[in-house]
């Protein structure tokens, strides 16, 4: 972790996940063997926090970028870090095909059901009835379609070796999430296929709540729709 002004809002899940990523890279001794790809969205500045070589991909294209890099540098740890708008909306094509090719990369997917950086618009993962700046009366199927379960889709693809859904709202969940990310990174190094770690996250600012309210809202509303746990593990 670097000394850098915190750009994330109070209560945001990104900070915790960044710390986990940094800890795992250090514990694995991979500081000089990691190529990380950050998205467009709130995590666009991820490179300021974690000391490894970083590439900022264009919106949604991190999995394509990472695919090429891992094939050209097979002995490096290559991972992407993306939000729901980036990975599950504008970059769905690149996501599905990287997963399906079984690229030996780890993908970290922060799902907070909203576009955070642009000010709280509807995301593909926005829950039914949930209010955002672009569905101010709540998400409705006839107007907006349904939330995209991209992590569940990933389970069906033969290229994925490890698909899991985690959260970082409690100490116990943080420990589980750390174990999951470590597993994903090890899969990348052991060339087992693609690993996808979804972190169901809060966006207190976008949801217009206090951090505590956001955590509770996530437990009450997000977890029933995006239940935590391993969805697929072919490595064990």
């Amino acid at each position: 972790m670097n000394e850098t002004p915190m750009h994330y809002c109070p209560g945001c899940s990104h900070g915790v996940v960044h710390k986990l990523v940094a800890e795992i890279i250090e514990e694995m001794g991979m500081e000089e063997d990691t190529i990380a790809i950050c998205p467009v969205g709130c995590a666009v500045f991820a490179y300021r926090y974690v000391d490894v070589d970083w590439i900022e991909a264009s919106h949604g294209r991190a999995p394509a970028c990472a695919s090429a890099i891992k094939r050209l540098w097979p002995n490096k740890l290559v991972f992407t870090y993306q939000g729901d708008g980036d990975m599950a909306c504008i970059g769905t094509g690149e996501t599905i095909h990287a997963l399906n090719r079984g690229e030996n990369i780890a993908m970290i997917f922060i799902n907070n059901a909203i576009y955070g950086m642009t000010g709280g618009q509807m995301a593909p993962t926005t829950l039914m009835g949930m209010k955002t700046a672009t569905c101010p009366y709540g998400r409705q199927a006839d107007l907006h379609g349904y939330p995209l379960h991209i992590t569940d889709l990933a389970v069906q693809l033969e290229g994925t070796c490890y698909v899991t859904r985690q959260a970082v709202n409690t100490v116990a969940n943080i420990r589980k999430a750390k174990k999951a990310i470590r597993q994903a990174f090890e899969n990348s190094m052991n060339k087992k296929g693609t690993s996808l770690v979804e972190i169901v996250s809060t966006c207190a600012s976008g949801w217009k709540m206090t951090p505590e309210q956001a955590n509770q809202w996530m437990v009450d509303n997000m977890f029933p729709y995006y239940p935590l746990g391993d969805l697929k593990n072919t490595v064990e």
Partner: protein
Amino acid sequence: MDNKKDIVLLKGNEVIAKAAIRYGYDGFFGYPITPQSEVLETLAADKPWETTGMVVLQAESELASINMLYGAGCTGKLVFTSSSSPGIALMQEGLSYMAGNELPGVIVSVGRGGPGLGTIQPGQADYYQAVYGGGNGDYNTIVLAPNSVQEMCDCMGKAAELTFKWRMPVIILSDGVLGQMMEKVELPPYRPRRTDEEIAKQCPWATNGIGLKNRKYNFMSTLELDPQVMEDRNQKMAAKYRQVEAEEVDYELYRVDDDTEYLIVAYGISSRISMKAIDLLQEAGMKVGMLRPKTLWPFPNKIISQLSERIKSILCVEQCEGQMINDVRLATEGQATVFHSGRSGGMVSSPMEIVEDFKSMARERMSNKWPKGYWMK
């Protein structure tokens, strides 16, 4: 692998693939599209990953291809993609990112008729796309324009050199005729791919996690929240572009001498057809020669301006409704009238059509209907 040159009869697209392997490219990322699919097909058949270690990947779209190129370029690898008009259109955003981060990468564009899905027959309607780009922001890309299968081969070597020398994407602007036609070609000897140590030495800026004993961590980003920092970056790139314009202009003159009265300006396949037209016109006693830009950016402005001082008029031949003609007009600095000749939409000029367009241009000039410098299409 032997180390000698080989003389073979091949299609332009096949040569692109074989040249890449021999020039030590690290990777190819592309998506099928007519009329360039033989590039990926040849790579897949030749299996360079078993010999030179070159990576070959069929991407899910041109959007993915160019972003694979972007990622690879960030890590200092020598990689290329190839596509045709609509596919290159899809890559424009990625090109802007590559230019913005000053990344190496080679893009082979085998043009067909447009706009939209257009035709699968040859075209040169992507001059604007290549030279002016469709990506956002202040940037340029070097554009090489081969006019033979041999030059398709040579351009792969030249592009590999220029893209690292200047740290900017290089486009090889070809067309469906050059891609599909077969000619004798001398393939270069095999050049080994660079080692990790060589890449670290050549690209200390790269985000590849190597050489970290001697450098800080790198990051690649085109995002600047401070407009002053962004302007500084733009001005630094602009200074580089002015240097490229001063050093890398390349062109060829055909049958131009002190008595030349008329000039044809043409690139790519149009220059080959124009050579035949010029031979016919010279037989008929016309004093006409050709200037062929081998680089479209940077454009050979200086030589066009010099020739414009002493010639009667210029015929710009291109297989589109007139795109390069505007750069030719600017280059004349108003000293010569420039006329258009060419077909579009996948149709290709015959030498006789160029001869006829030349004759009507010469008649216009002789009737003095148009004052010198008048811009007429």
